[in-house]
């Protein structure tokens, strides 16, 4: 009896001890050696500043700042108990995929809910994991490495395998919850590249938003869009402006209270990726921002030419081929904010050679419209707006008012007017003075320090003026891509194939260079990439972007090139950046607009803002230019813009030189004065105060305060008048 009891006690004791040991061993590393494990993630490697941890089950990572102890995690560690299995799977996996199955692409595939094999190998500065999902019969290798500036996550193209015809990979999101936060548990914001840059604060959104930001890097793919569902007034008129296109493949997350942030750069695969930013309240109560790579996309194939003949849903035949790579540039303490992100991105681009420092001295951009066409009895007749002689006159007049720092883009200079495109050779319209006069104007202007660039939209073709039967782009569904203008003279345009653009631009440049002039403004191909089909073959956005890049690279060697709103991969070729947006797209979940792109480019290449003509609040726009360090742009005609009323350019409702003369002089004088103090300097700091004051700090010590409030405000001991600015040296 006693023995039995002893036995029982012994067993009980043993049990207790085992449990204790088990418990101890489970929690011991956390308590004893915190540096080696966080929230179930084990130490992998470290560099001077950061430590990388990884959980082998989820492949999730944690990046810790050794100095401050702050860290960002890719897996949800605090569960509020409201999330179902699918969401938990999405929130903890390193990779979240969607599978395409019988033309539906919404099936989520992750590392937790779906059975998969993982083969993890540790490398010098990280790890690689070969993953294969049994049910879906596809897999890939995830490579994570800790480099000097942060973490690089990569899925090589050749590692992606699909072994059945039943399931295909639809999309791949890598570390979608890296840096996430729960409701308002952390102070900070998500940075998204909408327009010039926008922030979503990590405060409690009280479930006000039903969806978040989801936008394709480098704009929507027009090769896939069949019918634009927009809100039409009276069934006819488009009421909603297109949102801004994403100009650079970046996004960011900052936990400002903890002094840690990252800027993610999508280094490979950006052309086929979207940026997703969802504030808390969108399905779940977590804030998250990430990139989603699209491998295969669905599209609608009509069977006949009219709408009644029915459609079928198809999946892209081949997946897109590119490595997928995101670099997370980690930032700490005083750099853990959007200005820090912008600086990190600038340094990154400069270091990589994707950006080179150009002459950034001040200029006012005064663009001219040469000729347009309006309908006439037979065909069209010319509407002459600004001739070569007019431009001489305007330059002289401005010089007499001491405005001499000018660059110009001359639009509609070519024979046949603004929309006789594409331009195949250097031949100016007789109505503006002819080729020789134009050549002389460009040379004369150059001598007085004014660069006059000829505008060339190398993307579009006007089927009413030129033969658009061949060499034009078709959508993925093999229907010709047409862009409706909703105007009277020319009702639609087509897109040239990238190969054709290349031929024609080169032809033009050759004939242009023969006249010993080389100032060229390229548009169209600078901010459009699309998938297309031509001659029975399919081409992806990668092909399209590569063609355009090689074309621009080719002519960059021969010409002085300015580019109209170029995407990030063309920035290195631009002597000037035209048409930089200064605002966001005004999504309701965006809390603040910040001049991210301007901070990146200020002091590197000169940035010119959108045309002032069409701004309803000119004064505020002026302050925006002061804040972002952008230069002003005017769209000028000698004749009254009412002459354009019956042309395709009837959206230019204000452009007459006599109307804008005083504004040009006033803005030029004022902005030049500011610009001279900041010339060649980088913006290193940008702050937004509650009082609607913004503070911009340059690396040469100059500080500019801008007050957008309708009353005078003070900041840092300075008083700034209402709707005004102050430069402090």
């Amino acid at each position, binding site marked *: 009896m006693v023995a039995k009891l002893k036995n029982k006690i012994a067993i009980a004791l043993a049990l207790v001890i085992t449990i204790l040991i088990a418990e101890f061993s489970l929690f011991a590393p956390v308590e004893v050696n915190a540096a080696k494990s966080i929230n179930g993630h084990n130490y992998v490697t470290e560099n001077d500043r950061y430590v990388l941890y990884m959980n082998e089950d989820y492949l999730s990572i944690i990046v810790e700042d050794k100095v401050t102890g702050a860290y960002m995690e890719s897996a949800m560690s605090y569960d509020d108990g409201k999330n179902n299995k699918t969401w938990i799977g999405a929130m903890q996996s390193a990779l979240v995929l969607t599978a395409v199955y019988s033309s539906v692409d919404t099936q989520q595939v992750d590392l937790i809910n779906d059975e998969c094999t993982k083969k993890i190998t540790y490398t010098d500065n990280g790890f690689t994991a070969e993953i294969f999902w049994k049910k879906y019969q596809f897999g890939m290798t995830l490579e994570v490495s800790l480099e000097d500036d942060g973490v690089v996550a990569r899925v090589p193209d050749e590692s992606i395998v699909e072994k059945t015809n039943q399931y295909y990979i639809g999309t791949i999101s890598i570390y979608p919850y890296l840096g996430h936060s729960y409701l308002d548990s952390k102070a900070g914001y998500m940075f998204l590249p909408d327009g010039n840059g926008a922030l979503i604060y990590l405060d409690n959104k009280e479930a006000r938003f039903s969806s978040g930001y989801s936008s394709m890097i480098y704009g929507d793919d027009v090769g896939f869009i069949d019918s634009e569902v927009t809100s039409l*007034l009276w069934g006819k008129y488009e*009421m909603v*402006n297109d*949102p801004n296109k994403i100009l650079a493949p970046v996004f960011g997350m900052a936990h400002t209270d903890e002094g840690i942030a990252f800027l993610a750069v999508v280094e490979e695969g950006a052309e086929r990726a979207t940026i997703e930013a969802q504030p808390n309240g969108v399905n779940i109560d977590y804030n998250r921002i990430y990139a989603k790579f699209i491998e295969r996309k669905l599209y609608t194939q009509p069977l006949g030419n009219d709408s009644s003949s029915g459609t079928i849903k198809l999946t892209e035949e081949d997946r897109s081929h590119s490595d997928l790579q995101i670099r997370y540039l980690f930032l700490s303490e005083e750099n853990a904010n959007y200005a820090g992100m912008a600086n990190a991105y600038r340094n990154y681009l400069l270091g990589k050679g994707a950006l080179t420092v150009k002459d950034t001295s001040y200029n006012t951009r005064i663009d001219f419209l040469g000729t347009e066409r309006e309908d006439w009895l037979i065909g069209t007749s010319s509407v002459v707006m600004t001739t070569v002689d007019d431009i001489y006159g305007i330059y002289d007049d401005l010089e007499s008012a001491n405005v001499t720092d000018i660059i110009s883009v001359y639009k509609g200079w070519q024979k046949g007017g603004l929309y006789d495109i594409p331009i195949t050779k250097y031949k100016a319209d007789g109505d503006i003075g002819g080729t020789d006069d134009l050549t002389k104007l460009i040379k004369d202007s150059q001598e007085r320090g004014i660069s006059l660039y000829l505008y060339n939209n190398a993307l579009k073709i006007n089927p009413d003026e030129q033969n658009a039967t061949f060499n034009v782009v078709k959508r993925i569904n093999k229907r010709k891509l047409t862009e409706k203008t909703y105007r009277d003279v020319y009702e639609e345009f087509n897109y040239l194939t990238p190969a054709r653009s290349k031929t024609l631009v080169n032809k033009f440049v050759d004939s242009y260079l023969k006249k010993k002039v080389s100032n060229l403004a390229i548009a169209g191909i600078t901010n459009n990439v699309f998938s297309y089909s031509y001659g029975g073959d399919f081409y992806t956005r990668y092909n399209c972007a590569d063609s355009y890049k090689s074309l621009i690279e080719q002519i960059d060697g021969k010409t002085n090139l300015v580019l109209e709103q170029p995407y990030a991969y063309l920035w290195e070729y631009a002597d000037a950046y035209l048409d930089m947006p200064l*605002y966001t797209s005004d*999504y309701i979940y965006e809390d603040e607009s910040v001049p991210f792109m301007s901070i990146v480019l200020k002091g590197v290449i000169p940035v010119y803002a959108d045309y002032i003509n069409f701004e*309803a609040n000119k004064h505020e726009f002026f302050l925006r230019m002061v804040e972002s360090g952008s230069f002003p742009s005017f769209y000028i005609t000698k004749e009254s813009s009412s002459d354009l009323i019956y042309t395709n350019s009837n959206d230019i409702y204000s452009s007459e030189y006599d109307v804008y003369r005083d504004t040009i002089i006033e803005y030029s004088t004022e902005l030049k004065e500011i610009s001279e103090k900041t010339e060649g300097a980088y913006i290193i700091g940008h702050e937004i105060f509650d009082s609607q004051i913004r503070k911009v700090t340059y690396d040469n010590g100059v500080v500019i305060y801008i007050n957008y409030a309708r009353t005078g405000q003070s900041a840092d001991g300075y008083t700034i008048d209402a709707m005004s600015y102050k430069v402090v040296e």
Partner: protein
Amino acid sequence: MKKGMRKLFVSLAALLLVVGIAANTMEVDAKAPYRTYTIDGYGLITETQTAYLPYQTITKIGDELLSGPTDFCLTNDGYMYILDSGNKRVVVSDMEANMVMTFGQDVLVNPRGLYVTGDGTCYVADRDARSIFVFDKEGTLINTYGKPNHPLYGETQDFLPQKIVVNESGTMYIICESNTNGIVQISPVDGGTFLGYFGTNATNASLWDIVWRMLQTDAQRAKSQGNIPATPDNMAIDEKGLIYSVTRGEKYDTLKRLNIAGVNMIQADAYEEVPAAVAVGNHDNVFVASSQGYIYEYNNEGEMLFVFGGSDDGQQRIGLSTKVEAIQVDSENRIYVLDSDKAQIQIYEPTEFTNYLHEALYLFSKGRYTESKVPLQEVLKMNNLFDYANMAMGRALIQEENYEEAIKYAKLAKDFDGYSDAFWEIRNEWLKDNLVTIILLIIGLWVLKKVVNVLDKKKGILNGPRKVLAKIGSVKLIKEMRYMFYFMRHPIDGCYGIKKEGKVSLLSANLLLTIGIIFFVINKYFCGFLLKLPREGEYDVASDIGIIIIALLVVVLCNYLMCTINDGEGKIKHIYCSFIYSFAPYLVFMPFIFAISHVVTYNEVFFVEFATLFMTIWIALLVFISIREINNYTIKETFWIIFLTIFTILIALLLAFIIYVLWSQVFDFIQALFGEVVYKIGS
């Protein structure tokens, strides 16, 4: 972990405190996600710069969220009364969205409309309580009005109040659901006296309806849906006590401004199909909001100045709406739009451009034309093509007697009346200046003619030219063409000439046709501005020519077909030529009409109209006579043949239409088949 959680909750609580104070409103920066349009002189929509920018979004009052709000009201002393229908209460807040008080929780059942008078008395229209509740400034219920028991109200008529406005004397104007008699007018006297119906919408029966009803039997008529007038959707009241109402489906009568007698005094030049609310601005302007989120601004006359905003189809951008219920304007011209679906109030702020326009609007409506030129000039600087500004500028310049400038603006704005007035003055001026010269010129010419005649008689100086002319005149083709002058004066002989004497040829007829077409095209596109039918800048010459030729061929052919089976003597060539020669008056008159059209104003437009009428009758007579003569018919037979010809034309058109439809079907079928085969082979 535990520690982490506690920290989390502490910071959570702290943040809540901070956020709770400052997060009721969101400010945004200046770039609108929507476009702004205005209307041009031809009634077409054109884009203009942003008129109103999103300024603020109120999502919470104090700490409380709204639930399905359906109406609200701004008071002059700076309060917002919001009808929080989902919570069955009225919420009062200041303009910064701080909660002041709530009331009505115990009384309201399904409130739909609210109005607050100058002294803070709040009227609530409660649909399901079938009552109007009146609250005083403190939110105490002081009065209730139920269904009026007046014989004129209608005994079987239910009382389902939806919207309410109250005038200065306390008379209530109530829109009731499914009450098609009009706006219910109740005076507060004796606990609510029914004053009658107000501003009843008219029923409109189309011609088709009338014909259809005539054909129906009584039983069918009783069964069919009655043609009942529409109930207004919403209304507003201005300082003068005028009621503005909006009614869906009333086309150009959607927006009405009703005077005390219930007569509409405004005619809008553009309308919204689904209007939700109307508000009166500070410059005699009117705002209409559609339930999808479009906001229209009209001036005093009903000319549309702007339409902007839009519906949010999931884009979630600031300034777009989901379901608009009410609209208000504050003293700073900001527009407040209540969205019941988003449970928020979106505030829009006028831009610099709009502020200038409002200033001009105000000055212009007060008759201070010269002063209004300053803001108008600013508006035109920003938008050269803004129609209202061009019109107003033109009118202002006419007042200043600067007609030369005025006419430019009037032409740009397609302000035909203004153009006509200015042109009259300019012409008058010109006549005054040049009258003496003209008279001298006429006398001079007369003298010259006399002298030449005398010299000719004596020395025959005109013999040379006369010979040349005779020579030209003797060319066969010219002779044939000149025959038209004879033909138009002597059609019976003329037809004989065509039929028997070969006085004309196909070539001459075709030449005349060509000249006629050229005259037609020139007159159509280049006649005087006031008489021009196509829009400026609109040219469609190819289809003009096509239509003329096809119409001519169809008429001639059908006429010939009918004549041959009705014992007509005419050959097709003769019918064709006589048709064309019948249009001789057109060739003679048109150059004069064209010339006159350039010098007439609306005062003398009668001349052109008369000449055209005269010419048309002449042509018609010639056509009639030539059909009769060429075929040798009696008058009765001619009428009969004309009737048959018209009938044949209709049959021919029908046939052409059927063939076209069939062919396009076959074509589509082949194309779809081909597409599918290609797809099957491809996959």
